[in-house]
């Protein structure tokens, strides 16, 4: 395992090498992939599901799926894209299941207390970046507090780069509704930020 941990920045380790080694059954290489992408998967799951335990479950499920199928991964899209779509699909399935079984109401105060946002890269002057970081944290807090019909399309469009068509297919809603909901979600963020300032 150590051979993958020697550098101070694990991101620098070539993702393709790790995938190739994982395909050959190198468990240490796969564990390194887990270390590189676990937070990303967890974050995506948390923003969609708004539940730390479910986000953990989804993270584990996604990596089990990846582990069981990585031998067949051809690498036509990047690993990040592949794992991102897999995470979103798994989360949407969970949401569908939840809407059938559980009460949708979640305590927002509890959600905002439950997480800490960190930045993977931030290349701006310190003063400016501090202000931006706080604003981004505030924006994310508002995003998490949004209703599901606004939150999911906004996250998929603005944070995950999905097209309107893909979001419509995933959520089973017309493209027009998706566009309207994203516009309303952005407007809500804008209005709430005014009061924050």
């Amino acid at each position, binding site marked *: 395992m150590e051979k993958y941990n020697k550098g101070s920045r694990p991101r620098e380790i070539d993702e393709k090498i790790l995938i190739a080694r994982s395909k050959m059954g190198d468990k240490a290489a796969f*564990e390194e992939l887990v270390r590189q992408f676990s937070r990303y998967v967890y974050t995506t799951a948390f923003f969609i599901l708004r539940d730390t335990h479910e986000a953990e479950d989804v993270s584990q499920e996604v990596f089990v799926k990846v582990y069981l199928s990585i031998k067949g991964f051809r690498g036509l899209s990047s690993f990040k894209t592949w794992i991102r779509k897999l995470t979103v699909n798994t989360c949407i399935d969970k949401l569908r299941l939840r809407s059938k079984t559980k009460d949708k109401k979640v305590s927002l105060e509890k959600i905002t207390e439950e997480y800490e946002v960190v930045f993977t890269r931030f290349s701006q002057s310190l003063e400016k970046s501090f202000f931006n970081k706080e604003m*981004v944290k505030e924006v994310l807090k508002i995003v998490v507090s949004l209703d599901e019909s606004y939150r999911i399309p906004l996250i998929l469009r603005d944070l995950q780069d999905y097209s309107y068509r893909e979001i419509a297919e995933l959520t089973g809603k017309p493209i027009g509704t998706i566009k309207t909901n994203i516009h309303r979600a952005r407007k809500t963020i804008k209005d709430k930020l005014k009061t924050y300032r």
Partner: protein
Amino acid sequence: MNNIDRYLKIARDAVIKPSDDIDKKIIDRISHIGKSDEKLLDDKFLDYFKKSNSRVCLIIEKIRNNPGAFAALAIAGIFIIVFIAFMFKIFLGEEKTGGDNHQLSSSKDDTQ
């Protein structure tokens, strides 16, 4: 809205710090994979897996996601082909008339 877009763009690089050691949990889970876990690879997953491993499916997906851009590209391609064909025709025409002129001048030389 510009500021919102900017903040959301920055937010793409933000990750949530999990309360527990998520890496360890995932690695532990992977170490104990059993037969029952293969159920996770359901039809939906296999469908996604098949599509993500097919070049044709990925290209179709890209076209469906950006129909405008691909239409513009196709129109531009057609224009380029028409333009090349047009230039080729002009070039051939000039060559032909040039050849005819050459023939005419040479036949004039013969009569002289």
